[in-house]
């Protein structure tokens, strides 16, 4: 995983609440054995009509969404299925961070494992961001993981929570599987002690 420190990105908003991972990537696109090309099918059923033509009203088809790296999403984003294809598809489109008031647990875990930063903000900030994204199609936000801050265009800095372990992993590109593999002696000892 590539380390993340800070970045400034074009920001777009999808205010729908309770967006489930079936919307992020419909199940029929899960018949794959790798992670390639998933960005092309992200939000497929909202992005394209029954004939496969782009729906011009959907956010990601609007010209200003091209090149967006930050998505302000509605409350409880990523609920439902555990498919890690959801963060893979969002990253495939180009997103590096998702901002919401709450993420579903498994989606949040999956995102952190892939360096897609889930940023939780309070309701008032969230509403402000949704409004800003409507007013300004070229909205840019600055994310600084080191200081855990999101900087708004007016200069206001909003702190966001992230547990220290996940932060370290993201800042340094730590590979969690590698970390666990280095615990092998503790795991062996546990198995012996518990007759596993």
């Amino acid at each position, binding site marked *: 995983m590539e380390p993340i420190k800070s970045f400034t990105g074009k920001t777009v908003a999808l205010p729908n609440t309770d967006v489930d991972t079936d919307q992020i990537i419909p199940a*029929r696109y*899960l018949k794959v054995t790798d992670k390639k090309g998933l960005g092309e099918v992200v939000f497929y059923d909202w992005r394209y009509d029954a004939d496969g033509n782009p729906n011009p009203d959907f956010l990601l088809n609007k010209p200003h969404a091209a090149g967006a790296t930050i998505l302000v999403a509605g409350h409880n984003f990523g609920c439902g*299925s*555990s498919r890690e294809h959801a963060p893979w598809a969002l990253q495939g489109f180009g997103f590096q961070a998702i901002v919401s008031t709450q993420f*579903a647990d498994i989606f949040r875990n999956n995102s952190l494992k892939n360096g897609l930063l889930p940023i939780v903000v309070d309701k008032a900030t969230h509403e402000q961001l949704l409004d800003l994204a409507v007013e300004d199609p070229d909205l840019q936000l600055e994310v600084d993981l080191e200081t855990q801050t999101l900087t708004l265009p007016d200069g206001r800095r909003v702190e966001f929570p992230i547990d220290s372990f996940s932060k370290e992993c993201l800042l340094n590109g730590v590979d969690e*599987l590698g970390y*666990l593999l280095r615990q092998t002696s503790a*795991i062996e000892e546990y198995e012996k002690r518990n007759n596993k």
Partner: protein
Amino acid sequence: MNGTPRTLFEKIWDAHIVSQAEGAPAILYIDLQLVHEVTSPQAFTELRNRGIKVRRPDRTVATVDHSIPTYDRSLPIMDALAAKQLEQMYANARDFNIRIYDRLSDKQGIVHVIGPELGLTQPGMTIVCGDSHTSTHGAFGTLAFGIGTSEVAMVLATQTLLQRKPKTMNVRVTGALGQGVTAKDIILALIAKIGVDGGTGHVIEYSGSAIRAQTMEGRMTICNMSIEGGARAGMIAPDDVTFSYIAGREFAPKGADWDAAVARWKQLPTDDGAQYDAVVELDANALEPMITYGNNPGMGIPITARVPDPDAIGDVHQKAALHKALQYMDLQPGRSLIGHPVNVVFIGSCTNSRIGDLRLAANVMKGKRVAPNVRVMVVPGSQQVKRQAEQEGLDKIFREAGAEWREAGCSMCIAMNGDQLAPGEYSISTSNRNFEGRQGKGGRTFLASPMTAAATAIHGVVTDPRTVLS
């Protein structure tokens, strides 16, 4: 532990901590990983890329369920992508020395159906699978939860996961269910009450007289949909119902080992005085059969109630969500769903495809015919469930009523395998998700119990099962 009262969850959590470094998540030992074809290929690729083996093939069991057709097993798979994914699963099982129940196995089935029926699922265990409905196994007093593919790789490689301790929520269901009201209605009522985000960050423990009165199948239905309320897992303390379900199953302990296991399992229930972070109460006496009207499982109502009005909702985002859902579902606020036509009835999925579910549906359909122009699919959860149902003659009841009797798999719950709704069609489904397009692009899903689905199959319109019970 020094007499500090602990919950069922805390006892299992504590017993599985390998280590806990300051500031880091716990390293949690996983007793059993279940694997299926959809969420595992990239995990095995990760192991191959690193040149590592599966640490404990003996604690890893695979099957195929999501992308397999439910038509005659002797026919070839027509979907090239699905066929490739299945071949990859078989190759991974072979290369990494993992036990697999493949498409032609007589023990194949939905991963959350076969774990319990083979006796693999046992109280006190930690169980994971790359599937959010892994919460099903919590019905046996296990800590069982869904994980992503990166975590599947971690468990394959190390038999452990990095986990932060979740909070606990006790859902107490008191009283007793009335006729025609089942486990599915308990869980749909709970999710309607707490919302699809109500359990986020929590592990739910279900307790109370209405839970104790459930069979293991009913308990699995309840724990299965914990994730639909946002919870990490759902659990029910093991008791004699649990032990008698497990006894004699293929992988259950035998002889002296059985006695020792039961003695151990009896220590698991929550101690008197143990505290939960949240408590929710539900009165079973007041429950009716439930049905959903919208596009998440929290959008549910008692079957005799009316579809809610978005204009009555204060929160602007919730109001917009309900507007969007009613538009997608093409439903009017203030109307009852009773009498609403359906095109398809789906009885199956890891929520409601076990023998007890099929008996409930067959009991309603016995000696009757399904309504004309309604497609009724009955998809048993496993080949073992299928055989059992056939021994009991349930398949005959379904076939004579005009329903399709299929091979085991996830089928139209996730619509990856060709079993799907056409755009605009309505289904009443015993599955767990009514998300937009879940059962096929443009398809519209009403979630309900097997009894409600069967009653609806007979009339071709949404029907209160209590009106057809003799």
